[in-house]
């Protein structure tokens, strides 16, 4: 087989997945972009999407994304530190699998399982009233609180998995050396652990905050009527109004923010290395 015919055959092989990605990915994005500047060529949809009414939703969604990501990182740091450096190597893989198994479980069902815990007659209220901590049930379900718990529940395993990779690479002898030289726990964290795991943490944050900001199922199942996020607006526009222009513009504004953040993160070489694993 000559080089030329090999190239031809390789192009044919590449053509199959690429044509799927072009028809189901690139083409719809072009159609959506045309919708966003329509009818004709106008910026009206973008002006509406960035107007005071919807700018609030955008900021709220991104804010929820950033706060939940921060909470996930705060939990993931001690967890991955323990698994990578304290856990006996016999059980390490089992613990890691237990911590990341929920990634493979259905997130609609996982969100729903919290309904039974947080409802007025749910398990948590039942336990708290039985031990006498509260007199009347707390209204937790369909509030910011339940939505927030749902988000941490769904996205914590992603953050743990991403952070674990850089935590494992951290040389434990550095921590021991710092302790021998008298460093407090706070100094060990700030001077030793944080600098070498920051790229991994940044990568995890970049992956997770956008997924949270664009999430649909969690606010729909656990949020209240006031918890309107970007995806709720898009889904509403798609299913009810058939006025795609505004929702299309909103999608592109959101996409623009996500891509800018990814490019900014990718501009740092260490973060790019971590992102590559995804």
């Amino acid at each position, binding site marked *: 087989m000559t080089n030329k015919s090999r190239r031809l055959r390789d192009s044919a092989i590449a053509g199959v997945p690429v044509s799927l990605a072009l028809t189901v990915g690139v*083409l719809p994005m072009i159609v959506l972009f045309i919708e966003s500047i329509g009818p004709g060529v106008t910026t009206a949809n973008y002006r509406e999407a960035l107007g005071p009414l919807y700018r609030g939703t955008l900021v709220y969604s991104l804010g929820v994304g950033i706060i939940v990501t921060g909470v996930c990182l705060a939990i993931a740091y001690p967890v991955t530190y323990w698994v990578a450096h304290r856990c006996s190597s016999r059980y390490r893989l089992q613990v890691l699998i237990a911590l990341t198994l929920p990634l*493979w479980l259905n*997130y*609609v069902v996982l969100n729903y399982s919290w309904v039974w815990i947080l409802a007025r007659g749910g398990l948590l209220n039942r336990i708290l009233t039985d031990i006498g901590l509260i007199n009347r049930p707390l209204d937790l379900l369909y509030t910011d609180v339940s939505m927030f718990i749902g988000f941490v529940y769904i996205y914590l395993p992603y953050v743990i998995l991403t952070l674990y990779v850089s935590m494992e690479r951290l040389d434990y002898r550095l921590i021991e050396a710092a302790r021998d030289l008298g460093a407090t726990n706070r100094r060990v964290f700030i001077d030793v652990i944080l600098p070498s795991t920051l790229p991994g943490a940044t990568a995890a944050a970049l992956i997770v905050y956008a997924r949270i900001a664009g999430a649909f199922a969690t606010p729909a199942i656990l949020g209240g009527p006031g918890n309107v996020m970007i995806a709720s607006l898009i889904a509403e526009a798609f299913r009810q109004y058939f006025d795609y222009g505004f929702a299309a513009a909103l999608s592109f504004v959101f996409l623009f923010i996500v891509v800018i953040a990814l490019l900014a993160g990718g501009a740092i070489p260490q973060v790019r290395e971590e992102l590559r694993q995804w």
Partner: protein
Amino acid sequence: MVRRLWPLLRRGAGRFPGVVVVLTLAFLYVPIIAITYLSLSPNPQPTVPIKGVSLRWYNAVLTDTRFIEAILSSVGLGIVSAVGGTTLGLAGAHTIIRSQLTSATRSAVALVIGLPLFIPTVVVAFAIGVTTGIMNLGFGFLPVALGHLFWVLPFTTFLLTARYTELNRQLPEAARDLGADRKTVFVTITLPLLRPALFASALFAFALSFNEFLITFFLAGSGVTTVPLEIFGKVRIGATSFLNAASVLVLLVSALIAGGASVLQRPT
């Protein structure tokens, strides 16, 4: 209390990280245990504690025609994604690692295949929904299956790419030197070496498709219902024992698939 905690926090972090691990595991698994427990209730609306143990809601789920229809289409979509996604992923991995195309072309292929990883899923789902609507392709099984294939493609491609780079290049070359043609080399050397990764990729693709909700939600219209879609629809009406049993079944299926996949290919 503070006086006892303070030394722990200052020196060597003490038990603090271990305590967080235990609390995290509890946080992750208590809801799953709770819903499994409640699904065994004999009443349509479970009470705490449940009054007796019964499998009647599992029986109800498995004899509900709408639910069986949803399971069948979920499994069908899963099989299409597993077989199609892995085949296309193999083609993609071959292109990215082994092909004679220029490196710029190969990077472009990787970028296009990787689109679902950095475009928010709701935007992708919306774009596909709008496009099928405008082109009058209608809703139903085919657009949903294509959407799922597109969604699993980066995962299968990059999983197989990782295995492809680890492959010993000398084996196929030795076979070539001994006179085997490219097809024989591919069938007798490359494929068997990739076999564990191919099975892992198929299982992961099945799990991803089986759990996929957003793209299906935007595309299914009235034609297709899948298990996550069916559960989502019922959740909004109200929580019941029927729904709990259905949820436990879904968790069981996805856990089994994920377990099988991680035996074949350890998670990163």
